[in-house]
């Protein structure tokens, strides 16, 4: 026989957007690395989170926050469930590599801000580990750009245009970011793509906007 005794003394679901597949140009398979270059405000955080969002269905993603400014709201808006995003704050350049290396062992995607002054060798080692562990990795240098040969997809923000705000009226609604994409993902070509983000869906690549240039054409342009 059992007695149950209770003793008392006096005493949202978050509405996230439906994730849609990002265009093939902006996708990151397991083990691939993306490098994002551009100043804060160019929209690269949302783009980076969108690259990782499809992987959140398998398990948690991590945002390694060097500046201490990371806000998960933008990640939620691109379709990552709140409980699937863990933010790690660390501005310590010494432990940064160790943290990323540890995370690559067991999470399903890492968005890492890269502190200034980090040794290139550390980044090469981490890139190799990300490939070996098949963990997608997005690297966003706080200043400067990544050394060559690390990223599968390099995205450099060249221009950002906002719509919706007009002399005190309306509010920000739609952003178009022009990106220069390069790396293995673009098969050696330097491609200019424009990405549209209206805040209600995943990012879309604007069709027929980009221009493709071969490396040879690039060299010719630079020479001229």
């Amino acid at each position: 026989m059992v007695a149950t005794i209770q003793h008392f003394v006096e005493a949202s679901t978050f509405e996230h957007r439906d994730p849609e597949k990002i265009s093939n140009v902006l996708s990151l398979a397991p083990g691939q690395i993306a490098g994002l270059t551009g100043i804060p405000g160019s929209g690269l955080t949302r783009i980076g989170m969108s690259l990782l969002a499809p992987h959140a269905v398998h398990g948690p993603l991590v945002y390694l926050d060097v500046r201490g400014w990371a806000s998960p709201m933008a990640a939620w808006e691109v379709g990552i469930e709140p409980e699937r995003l863990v933010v790690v704050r660390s501005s310590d350049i010494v432990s940064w590599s160790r943290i990323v290396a540890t995370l690559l062992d067991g999470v399903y995607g890492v968005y890492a801000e890269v502190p200034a002054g980090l040794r290139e060798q550390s980044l090469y080692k981490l890139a190799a580990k990300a490939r070996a562990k098949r963990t997608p990795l997005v690297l966003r240098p706080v200043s400067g750009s990544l050394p060559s040969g690390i990223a599968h997809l390099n995205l450099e923000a060249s221009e950002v245009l906002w719509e919706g705000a007009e002399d005190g009226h309306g509010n920000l609604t739609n952003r178009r970011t022009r990106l220069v994409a390069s790396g293995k993902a673009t098969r050696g070509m330097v491609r200019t793509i424009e990405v549209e983000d209206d805040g209600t869906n995943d990012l879309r690549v604007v069709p027929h906007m980009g221009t493709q240039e071969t490396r040879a054409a690039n060299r010719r342009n630079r020479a001229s």
Partner: protein
Amino acid sequence: MGQDGRIVACNEAAAAFGVVVGMLRSSAEAICPNVVTIVQDLSVEMARFEPVVQAIESIVPRVEVAEPGTMYLPIGGAVVYYGGEEDLCDRIDKELDSFGGDRRMGLAEGPFASYQAVRQTTRSHPRYIVDDDERFVANLDVASLGSDDLAATFRWLGITTLGDVAELPRDAIISRFGRVGLEAHRRAQRLDRSTHPRDIPEDQVVVSHFDPPIEDSERAAFAARNLAQRLVGNLSPHGVAPHRVIVTATAADGTEQKRTWRSADPFTERSLAERVRWQLRSWIEGVSGGIRGGLATLQLEPTDLSGSGRQMALVEDARAFEETQRVFMEVQAIAGRDNLLVGTPQGGRDPGEQMLWTRWGEEESVPERDPEAPWPGRIPSPAPALVPPEPVPFEVTWVEGIPEQVRLRSRWVPVLSWAGPWRRVGRWWDGEDSSDRYQIVTSAGAYLCEVREGRTYLMGVYD
């Protein structure tokens, strides 16, 4: 108030206004405007409940705690010793008189029935003794199974009581409802106490020794999580999970304290870690003098293993889950406990207010503000991707109330367009000033800023 924003307990004064358990906080505040709401902290509740458990243990041994405020007692022997069920209840009542408060008892043959019995009690009738378990359980509504979805489906099928559920063929239940249905069927047939007989590996006790001994709750919580993870991790390859765990803490002076925790569903790492943490906190900070000299050894001993084990989502796999937990613990050790965070949406007018941070591995914080509320003056989406912990000074040139230029690092950048202001009326009674928020667009990006007392601050970057 519990995690879901509903009232879990109220005092008599609030009850006199019509506040009842289960009511939404907003409803309670509507009928009783002066009500003071306290967010439920189960570890504090356990610390206050521990003396009650100890008092009961002096009458009936082998107490099993289900949650702070609720315990199960095997009373077969005690009923005979004290001369009957009513006499035993009187004895328990007398023992608990010194604690005050409201206490209720439900007596039945099995734990599920006794739990349902205690739910039948009221403040004026605090005891419910079940004469005939079979009839009592059979007459229970399907809502007593604790799953709204399952209850709704049963009702739709014309099945309204547990008696109806018990009569359904077991195979049909399993094929239609899976594990949840099987568990419901077992409870309806009053088989909740027995577990599936399986070959369970012997000696699954996990122990941790601490040198130097642990003397604070924070470190104890960390140890609890480690040990809970080890226990559940050791059991999961065998496809079993514990329903009941004995927590044993040995103090540096050799004294030993034990407590049995019980759960209707198999313990997960998280649920077990929580209970061990509550228990350790109640021992360390409790009225019984704490753990003298600190916690030297912590031991978890599983009993009543269930064959159901931990259920994973289809695309997840148990080993990967454990690996992720291990990785987070390791990163926590490198970066510090306060630097591994999970955000939860909550209401608010500014981006900084709309997220609530919780340390990874800890109970999710209860949102202070309802995210579904309208929040006049809220900045419309999209949300800025970068939000400083506190607004930082931002240099903007204003000409007749219109932003002209923004200083980004060392250069001035012209403003291309702007929106706002969104007026925020501060809590003037607390001396808080009003402010205006603007969205400012430049060729380098867009920024959310606030103008307060003639100065401009950066609140977010649309990155």
